[in-house]
């Protein structure tokens, strides 16, 4: 199994690098123009299983090679590089465009918006190619949307595996989780000083 690194894979555990899939919020992953609803969830798996085609893969509708994949994370991540394994026979995607931290993008938005980065892909059936990101732009990613506008001439576009390499921070981008609104202050919530005489003062 060749790797992009110039060492053999037995020394260096490649699979540990491609572990960002664990931080993906799988239940909220969606795709537009997929032939089978929900099949997009099957492309996020461990590095070792990237070539196993036993499970279903993501396929676009007949005659329409565009695909849009929305990937939210459970915490903010930094993405270093992306790997895509496509299908055979011209069904691999040929271009990829990424959008960061925006949800609800559909095809007309994707075509009109400026992507944060674009790549030209090669057919990567063995999963050995990875595409580096401009790391400074991918520092606190809560969600990434990948748009695949074209493929290598096939009738549909198939994607077997999407791998993300990077680091996960423990931070969350959406700041406000619980807010408590007080109509009147409750002194017991605000005991900062020592008990006894600290809170009240009286004027003589």
């Amino acid at each position: 199994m060749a790797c992009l690194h110039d060492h053999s894979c037995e020394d260096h555990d490649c699979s540990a690098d491609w572990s960002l899939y664990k931080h993906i919020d799988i239940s909220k992953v969606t795709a537009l123009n997929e032939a089978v609803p929900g099949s997009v969830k099957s492309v996020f798996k461990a590095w070792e299983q990237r070539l196993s085609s036993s499970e279903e893969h993501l396929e676009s509708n007949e005659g329409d090679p565009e695909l849009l994949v929305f990937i939210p994370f459970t915490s903010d991540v930094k993405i270093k590089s992306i790997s895509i394994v496509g299908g055979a026979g011209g069904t691999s995607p040929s271009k990829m465009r990424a959008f960061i931290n925006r949800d609800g993008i559909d095809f007309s938005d994707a075509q009109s918006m400026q992507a944060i980065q674009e790549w030209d892909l090669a057919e990567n059936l063995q999963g050995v190619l990875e595409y580096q990101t401009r790391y400074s732009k991918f520092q606190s990613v809560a969600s990434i949307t990948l748009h695949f506008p074209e493929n290598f001439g096939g009738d549909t576009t198939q994607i077997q595996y999407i791998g993300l390499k990077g680091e996960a921070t423990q931070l969350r981008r959406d700041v406000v989780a619980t807010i408590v609104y007080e109509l009147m202050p409750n002194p017991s919530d605000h005991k900062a000083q020592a008990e006894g005489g600290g809170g009240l003062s009286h004027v003589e």
Partner: protein
Amino acid sequence: MVLEATMICIDNSEWMRNGDYAPSRFQAQADAVNLICGAKTQSNPENTVGILTMAGKGVRVLVTPTSDLGKILACMHGLEIGGEMNLASGIQVAQLALKHRQNKKQQQRIIVFCGSPIKHEKKLIEMIGRKLKKNSVALDIINFGEQDDGKIEKLEALLAAVNNNDTSHIVHVPTGSSALSDVLINTPIFTGDGEGGSGFAAAAAAAAAGGLSGFDFGVDPNLDPELALALRVSMEEERARQEAAAKKATEEAAKQEKGEGQPSGTQDAMMTERANVATSEVDNKDDENALLQQALAMSMDDPDSGHETRDTDMSDAAADDPELALALQLSVQDGTKDSSSQSDLSKLLADQSFVSSILASLPGVDPNDPSVKNLLDSIQSQTEVRASNLSSQQKNEEKEPKEDEK
């Protein structure tokens, strides 16, 4: 309970003046729109509905998707009829309105009322359908009113292009006595993709049909669950009693041929009597105990009825074919071994102390009550008779194969 944003496209073209749907096509459509809005907002409070008109001077959005039912109903007033329907533009504007919905988590749906002829080409319609499917927008089509050649074909093609996993539907409403809304209530447009009718739809159906249809026993389970449960339980008991009585009747007919006659029948009668005792207590106890007794009676019924149906089948077959009769009798010898275990069960039940302890646990029954005592005595005597008859039956069967061999 799907979270959905819906855009309803209304046809207010000249063809809507026609009166073949009471009171006029346009009014029937307005009633249906009101019902749909109510159903959608009730099934999930965060659902939003918007309305646009397709004819008139042009496609016009009356209200953008909102959950405020009053606003939606208000905008239905004062709509003017005229012009020609523009289906393609209507759907595209609806799609745009849904794209700019406030809550991006909502699923997108368009409901189109199509009551006049479609002037677009089929190819254009299909392209629009594919674009909707690509952006995962579901489409419901209500075909009513004017039918010209090609309209149904175009609408079916549109549905085929849009449909993704059966989320889109088409309904054809013919002219007739029932109102447009009544026909729509039973369709997946209201019942929402097989999730089961929403409470609104079910209640509306009941009101529309004049009260009792749509619910078992005429009671709305939403309104009065305990009453509905009690009614259902008593229906099942009655059915069980009738089945037992029917089996007893066939049993007696069958047993007279074999010369066994009464014991199994009365065995059955004993079982039904016990079931009756149990069921008469239902009224005195709460539902949980009732169901427990019901289950007990049913389980007592079942082993015996299983045994008896085997007997009936055997007698019917035996009349036809002697070899078959031999095979059946050999198999019944295995069956009697089962029934001996069942008779153990009935012995247990006939055990006076066990039964009286069960009956003592029923609050309404006093074990010292003379009628109960008579019942217990009859149970005991019946089991003795049955046990003796079982042994005689085994002897008969051993004799008959020998006769056949001769």
